[in-house]
């Protein structure tokens, strides 16, 4: 939405000096352009979702409606795969663990680098971007041997959270970095220091509360990433939600439960987005 808006507005100042009629004309054209772009992209994203929703409500006979696929989510048990509900649980747990670990690792580190070891900032930024640039398959080759070794101990799919922390890092780093840039970290921390605050106090009571929105953003991105991750889980032979849905679809083509579960996951992500942005906004409104 922001991109669409800026397409419409950026050229406006340049046109301001032109004669009035031309200006209005141009503005109308840009406005029309904006709506066309918005509509095309809207349809592009919306149609598949609507289609998915429709499939999830398909009855036994083609073209009929039924809520059966939605009721199945809680109880579905495909052949040769674990119960659907268990992989939903696992994925949720993965999302929570990954988000917490990512934030606990990144937030203090990033503040510390910003405050005390500025010269490390570039290196850290570079490192945080690496997971984006390394293809998943390459990651798996490297990770495979490690996971093979620890699999002796027959650990659950929750072990995936370690990889996910790495995968989420570029996104979480960007979000947090934007939050840090928005405040004068140095002055705020020096003010707090001179008032008698320890470094711990400075971080927890002065910097972090002012990064609230950024932390929520990082949380949202991390959760979304984990909820939709397929490649690594599949290649490392773990069973998360995406892998489970894939297996079900292989065994039972057109199983309605695939669509209802996917739709539910999507709605869940939307809900999360709404809650988090609402939480951030309410704070700003008050503050």
């Amino acid at each position: 939405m922001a991109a669409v808006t800026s397409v419409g507005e950026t050229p406006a100042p340049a046109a301001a000096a032109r004669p009035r009629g031309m200006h209005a004309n141009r503005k109308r054209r840009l406005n029309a352009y904006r709506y066309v772009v918005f509509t095309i992209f809207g349809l592009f994203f919306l149609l598949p979702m609507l289609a998915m929703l429709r499939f999830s409500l398909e009855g036994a006979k083609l073209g009929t409606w039924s809520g059966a696929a939605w009721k199945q989510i809680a109880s579905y048990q495909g052949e040769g795969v674990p119960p659907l509900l268990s992989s939903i649980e696992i994925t949720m747990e993965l999302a929570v663990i990954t988000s917490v670990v990512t934030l606990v690792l990144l937030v203090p580190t990033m503040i510390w680098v910003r405050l005390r070891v500025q010269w490390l900032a570039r290196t850290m930024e570079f490192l945080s971007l690496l997971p984006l640039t390394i293809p998943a398959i390459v990651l798996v080759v490297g990770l495979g041997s490690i996971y093979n070794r620890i699999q002796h101990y027959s650990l659950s799919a929750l072990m995936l959270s370690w990889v996910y922390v790495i995968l989420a890092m570029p996104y979480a780093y960007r979000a947090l970095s934007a939050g840090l840039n928005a405040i004068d970290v140095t002055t705020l921390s020096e003010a707090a220091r001179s008032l008698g605050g320890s470094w711990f106090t400075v971080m927890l009571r002065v910097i972090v509360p002012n990064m609230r929105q950024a932390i929520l953003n990082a949380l949202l991105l991390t959760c979304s990433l984990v909820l939709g991750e397929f490649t690594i889980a599949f290649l490392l032979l773990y069973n998360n939600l995406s892998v489970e849905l894939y297996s079900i679809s292989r065994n039972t083509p057109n199983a309605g439960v695939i669509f209802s579960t996917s739709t539910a996951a999507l709605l869940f992500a939307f809900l999360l987005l709404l809650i988090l942005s609402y939480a951030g906004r309410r704070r700003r409104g008050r503050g």
Partner: protein
Amino acid sequence: MTAAPLTRTARAAVEVRLEGLSRHYGPVVALDHLDLTLAPGELIALLGPSGCGKTTTLRLLAGLEDADTGHITVGGRDITHVSAAKRDMGMVFQAYSLFPHMTVRQNVAFGLRLRKVNAAQRDKRALEMLDLVGLSVQADRYPHQLSGGQQQRVALARALAIEPQVLLLDEPLSALDAKVRAQLRDEIRRIQLEVGITTLFVTHDQEEALAIADRVGVMRDGRLEQLAPPTEVYSRPATSFVAEFVGLSNRLDGEVKGGEVTVRGITLPLVERDVPDGRAVALIRPEAVGLASDAAAESGPLTGTVIAVTFLGATSRVTVDLGDTRVLAQLPTSDATTLTAGGRVTLTIRRDPVLVSAASEPAVGEEA
């Protein structure tokens, strides 16, 4: 601090000594063996051009940077290696530094909360401090709802709330517009006197420094050029740098001979007697220049044409073109009424002791 009734007047003021303080950043020498002693309750203003080491001095004193060499003692106690959090100094920053997520009241009480003062007492103290800076009505607002001047007042209240031993102000007024600046400057001085706290005030604005300080320290390249009361810095600058940086100066070519300098036919005594004879530039204050309207004046070294008359209130500033150079004169407005642009005038120069600088030295601290 917890039990005693919190009153406006802080505990007894302390002496602050900076001895041989040095600090360099890579090849840049920010501070070069600086010695400075603040008497208990004294307000010293550090004045100097940008990059001369004022902020560095303040940050070393606050413990936000470590000194390469030197010692800092506060009230006889060596605090050179004490961390910023334990130095007990109130600091007001150039940039707005209030915590955005706290109300004004919470900001002011923050330092007391860290000191585990109970809620009732810290609230009382916060309101008292806000009262002192005239902002008790705004106690429950957030920083972004305040003007720049109000934010700096809150920052001052926050710094004073912890009853610090020393108050440090780093160009607290530089982000404000002229009117608010003068008003808040006077208020800072009033509060400082009321609390009686030893204070170091950093500024690059000479008017501010002269107006607020007990003593002014003029800095250049990490060193103190002169440390003296404002009147002395102004009327008896120790070096030509000080003369040019503090206040306006006319630079007129002259000839030094036997402890005196002759400028445009007028002989003036020198501040420093041991200047070698030869050509030099005399630094002459605009107030030392007198003007008399004289339509019939023959051209000579001391006659010229008025270019502009600037009304400054009680005084007026007149720019005179002498043909080969221009001179600024500052006169009581009542004497300047007869002068108009284009009029011919004759010049007089009061026989105050003057400073000279070498003829080639460039001007510093140009004023608008």
